[in-house]
């Protein structure tokens, strides 16, 4: 059907010439072919069977077959004071840990050890970028259809002075199933295949781009 017949040798070159993927997150929406023939039917959605395929990779806390009740009342609506209540996790950034908070006006003022620790904790909390989890609908060609993905809280700047924002820093992935259809001699052949769906697992206070 191609206007130009591709020879075998050329095909080799074709395979070498491919665009290059990036690890950047978040993922933009995957544009699906709207043809309903490519959708799984009722009989293809046997829960017991599909759970058996996924096995231990089915994580009830982060995956759901039916629309989750708290879908629209997720952490996405967190206001600033709620985010600030979240104690930071991991290790304190070394530049905050090194801060002495010496104030110079005339003679040196060095804060007490206890106060210093409190200030470091305050700055760390201020600059900390929590991962916000929200349910996402992957559409009916993925199973389970609903997964809880991470995003970075970005309603305020996370730096002093302002200018930096929370951005994805690390990613991991869920394994879910994808309904894949191929045109074969006998017609359209479809099957569930495992796919890796990337999610944001850590956010960091960084400069935009």
């Amino acid at each position: 059907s191609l206007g130009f017949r591709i020879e075998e040798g050329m095909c080799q070159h074709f395979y070498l010439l491919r665009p290059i993927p990036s690890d950047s997150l978040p993922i933009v929406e995957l544009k699906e072919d709207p043809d309903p023939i490519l959708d799984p039917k009722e009989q293809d959605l046997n829960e017991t069977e599909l759970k058996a395929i996924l096995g231990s990779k089915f994580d009830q806390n982060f995956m759901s077959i039916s629309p989750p009740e708290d879908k629209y009342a997720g952490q996405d609506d967190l206001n600033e004071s709620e985010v600030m209540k979240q104690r930071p996790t991991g290790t304190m950034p070394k530049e905050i840990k090194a801060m002495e908070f010496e104030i110079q006006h005339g003679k040196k003022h060095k804060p007490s050890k206890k106060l210093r620790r409190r200030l470091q904790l305050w700055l760390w909390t201020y600059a900390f970028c929590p991962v916000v989890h929200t349910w996402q609908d992957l559409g009916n060609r993925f199973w389970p259809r609903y997964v809880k993905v991470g995003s970075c809280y970005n309603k305020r700047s996370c730096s002093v002075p302002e200018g930096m924002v929370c951005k994805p820093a690390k990613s991991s992935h869920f394994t879910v199933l994808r309904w894949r259809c191929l045109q074969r001699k006998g017609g359209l052949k479809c099957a569930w295949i495992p796919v890796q769906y990337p999610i944001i697992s850590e956010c960091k206070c960084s400069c935009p781009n």
Partner: protein
Amino acid sequence: QVALKTAEATDGASVDPKQGCKKHELYVSFRDLGWQDWIIAPEGYAAYYCEGECVFPLNSYMNATNHAIVQTLVHFINPETVPKPCCAPTQLHGISVLYFDDSSNVILKKYRNMVVRACGCH
């Protein structure tokens, strides 16, 4: 089946190379590129492309760089010295692709700079 569909972005007319540099419609089907074996979704995408002359004087909408302005004049004075600046994307954006990687894992990843957003003279 037409291998690759192309149409004028605004008026449906075919591309006149004497027209100024601008964005044109281009739908790319991954099947036509022979990529159906490693790309699962999407089927294809609206890639667009840039075409048109970067002529003297450059109109401001062509997003010309200072170097392109200089090159246009050098070409105008002595066309043998350097070519005209060329019409190329000035802004691109990405799409998500579900594909088989080298280890036959199926992965969803972003492919950056796949879609032309704007064209200009470079």
